[in-house]
């Protein structure tokens, strides 16, 4: 599960301007751009601009962290799932999310950053992950809403990214999208079960929907992009495949009708499809978005503390299994 919410390197996020650009060999750069324009994939051993390597690495790494951290709010509810079938589905889903994390870390490693360095950057707060997981899953209905809407949003984003230019990332996403379709369907099923259930169940799912729509779901794809030279370059290099607003429109178009169909409401009186077929909505508080990304959300500290605890308390097991002569390398694919 991953949104686009943390991809743009905004000075507001890092508190510093992005690094000065390396001057690339114009002949190699032209060849590289021509290959991408022809629809060819870039492989780890190919020449690539330093800026491309940096941006793709950052995107895949954030995606990997999002999968791992995303397993935490859902994992919380495994012990309290309402039926055995829901519990089995949730266990399978959480296992898939962790598996996605592994696939993505592997893809990121091909760009030359070790898995250990990525985990260190997550735990220290240097690397970001999808903002949505800094909000708490308070009831079982939250799990239904996450499984339905957050996974739906993730599919919109990941189907777009799967057409990108970096080979190892596309291959990982192909498998991830296949598994996400099960996540979405089981989430929709749990959501509908509550929506057509007793008045109390219906009230529960409506309450969860209200809390997850504003701000998490409306923050999910990130702020509307400013069309800068930088964004244009990322699109030309097929690192960024759709603008944040295009993805948000795609999501609203597909899923708002599914919610309204059940007689449920969304907490935005301005939400409607206008005559041109565009969805209009109230802009969420983007200052809160940047505040939460920078660590000041309801669950940031707990999420990272749990992750740190797992690494620290798993260390003795990894050390016990360590073999002499283990040598690291950058994987080929």
């Amino acid at each position, binding site marked *: 599960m991953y949104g686009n919410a943390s991809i743009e390197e905004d000075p507001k996020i890092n508190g510093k301007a992005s690094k000065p650009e390396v001057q690339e060999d114009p002949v190699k750069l032209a060849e590289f751009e021509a290959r991408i324009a022809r629809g060819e994939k870039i492989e780890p051993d190919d020449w690539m601009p330093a800026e491309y390597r940096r941006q793709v690495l950052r995107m895949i790494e954030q995606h990997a962290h999002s999968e791992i951290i995303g397993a935490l709010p859902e994992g919380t509810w495994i012990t309290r799932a309402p039926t055995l079938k829901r519990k089995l589905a949730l266990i399978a889903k959480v296992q898939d999310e962790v598996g996605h994390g592994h696939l993505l870390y592997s893809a990121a490693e091909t760009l030359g950053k*070790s898995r250990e360095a990525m*985990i260190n950057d997550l735990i220290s707060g240097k690397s970001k992950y999808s903002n949505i997981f800094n909000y708490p899953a308070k009831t079982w209905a939250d799990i239904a809403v996450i499984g339905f809407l957050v996974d739906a949003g993730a599919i919109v984003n990941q189907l777009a990214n799967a057409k990108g230019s970096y080979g190892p990332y596309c291959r990982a996403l192909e498998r991830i999208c296949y598994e996400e379709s099960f996540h979405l369907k089981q989430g929709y099923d749990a959501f509908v079960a509550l929506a057509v259930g007793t008045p109390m169940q219906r009230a529960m799912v409506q309450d969860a929907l209200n809390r997850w729509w504003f701000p998490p779901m409306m923050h999910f794809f990130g702020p509307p992009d400013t069309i800068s030279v930088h964004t244009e370059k990322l699109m030309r290099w097929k690192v960024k495949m759709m603008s944040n607003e295009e993805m948000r429109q795609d999501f609203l178009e597909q899923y708002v009708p599914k919610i309204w169909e059940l007689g449920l409401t969304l907490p935005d009186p301005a939400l409607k499809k206008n005559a041109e077929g565009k969805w209009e909505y109230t802009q969420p508080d983007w200052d809160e978005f940047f505040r939460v990304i920078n660590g000041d959300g309801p669950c940031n500290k707990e999420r990272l503390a*749990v992750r740190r605890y797992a*690494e620290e308390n798993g260390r003795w097991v990894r050390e016990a299994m360590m*073999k002499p002569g283990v040598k690291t*390398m950058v*994987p*080929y694919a």
Partner: protein
Amino acid sequence: MTTSLDPRIRRADLEHAPASGGLMQNEHWEPFAVFHQDKRGAAHEFVGIVHAPDPELALAFAKEQFGRRKKTVNLWVVRSTDIFTFQHEDDDMFSTIPDKNYREASGYPVRKRINKYLDDLKTLAKSKYLDHMEEESG
């Protein structure tokens, strides 16, 4: 930190957990390439990597990661350091040029040759017949 909604996390007492010194290089062992076979008779196909300290654990992780959803009858793992490759930038050495058609079945137009032979025979027979008729009438 606000109190966690998860009783297991509350019990773990994270506030007093040891401070992280960070992970060391190689703490997550080394990469192994995984090859997946979906049915008997099919070729094993590269599907991704796992990190493990040895081949036995690499197989266990590969089973969990690549054998839990797709149909699987067998897996191979091999240390990534034991794989040797060409570079993608040298891929022109594999390109097939048109005058290499002596390596292709289509480089041998047998039927064309036979048809020409049969046509020649027919033409020959026809002209012989005509010659013969000329002699008869002459």
